[in-house]
């Protein structure tokens, strides 16, 4: 998979939120095989538990700063500029949310921020609704990928609108990364079967009963999904199609009654 000018072997992006310890985060990074992880910026606090930067450095992963917590384009642009200073990367996972209950993206504000940040030279990966038209607009302003949600952040509700996701996939050459909603490995597999290039997971792994085991499971889900996509699934049919031929059925077998 390639985003902007960077190639990745792994198709699983890991969100670092929700892990109860940095040790568990480190183990989950290893188990997930991820090469790209999100980080956030917040006010410096005296009770910080060690530096997440040390863990991420040690695992050699690339950083994807987010703009979580921003409700306006202006705040998101400021946060992205600060993240560029803090992390020395011009990549940004752009989040502009509409309210704190649904955490759903605010489309107009998202688009405005995306356009501004692209103009400033950022590699913009927008967290967006599963809206094919908004996805197209984000592509037009120069985003480097489209990151539609499957369902609200942390909801674990999986992919609520697979048809919209398929349309988003169909109409763009950009990487499509399912962001938000994954609850378990089968959700990740479905995203890949629908044609996504990658999946971003945070809560599904960090808040699982066994985060490291779930990181492994979701990595396998992603791998299974892309292999199934490449293999080409059979079409869905309303009625059965026999896998054993009726040719040569013995004479004692009775023909079915016509309905």
């Amino acid at each position: 998979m390639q985003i902007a000018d960077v190639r990745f072997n792994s198709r699983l992006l890991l969100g670092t939120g929700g892990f109860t310890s940095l040790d568990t985060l480190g183990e989950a990074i290893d188990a997930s095989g991820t090469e790209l992880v999100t980080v956030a910026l917040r006010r410096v606090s005296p009770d910080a538990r060690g530096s997440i930067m040390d863990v991420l450095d040690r695992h050699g992963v690339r950083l994807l700063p987010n703009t979580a917590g921003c409700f306006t384009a202006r705040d998101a642009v400021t946060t992205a500029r600060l993240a560029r200073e803090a992390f020395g990367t011009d990549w940004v996972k752009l989040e502009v949310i509409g309210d704190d209950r649904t955490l759903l993206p605010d489309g107009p504000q998202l688009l405005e921020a995306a356009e501004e940040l692209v103009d400033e030279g950022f590699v913009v990966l927008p967290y967006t609704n599963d809206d094919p038209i908004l996805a197209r607009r984000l592509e037009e302003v120069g985003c480097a990928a489209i990151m539609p949600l499957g369902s609200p952040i942390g909801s674990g509700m999986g992919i609520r609108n697979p048809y919209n996701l398929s349309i988003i996939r169909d109409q763009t050459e950009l990487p499509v990364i399912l962001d938000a909603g994954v609850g378990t490995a089968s959700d990740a597999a479905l995203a890949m079967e629908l044609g996504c290039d990658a999946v971003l997971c945070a809560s599904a792994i960090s808040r699982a009963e066994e985060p490291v085991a779930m990181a492994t499971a979701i990595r396998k889900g992603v791998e299974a999904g892309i292999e199934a996509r490449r293999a080409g699934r059979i079409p869905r049919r309303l009625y059965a199609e026999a896998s054993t031929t009726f040719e040569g059925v013995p004479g004692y077998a009775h023909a079915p009654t016509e309905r």
Partner: protein
Amino acid sequence: MTVTVNGEPRQLVPGTTVAELVDQLDVPAGHRGVAVAVDAEVVPRTEWDTTEVPDGARVEILVAIQGG
């Protein structure tokens, strides 16, 4: 003079630079994952040593945390 640092009032000696203010706080060694905004404008790291914090400024000093 009084400035606001991460929402809290703080007394500073006039002429205090951004770099000096950052060092008063509990930030990671080498300032990894640290960024500063003064009155909602980013102060690039290369300018921390030469930028004085203005009287009454609203300063945000941010660090990397888990998220996303």
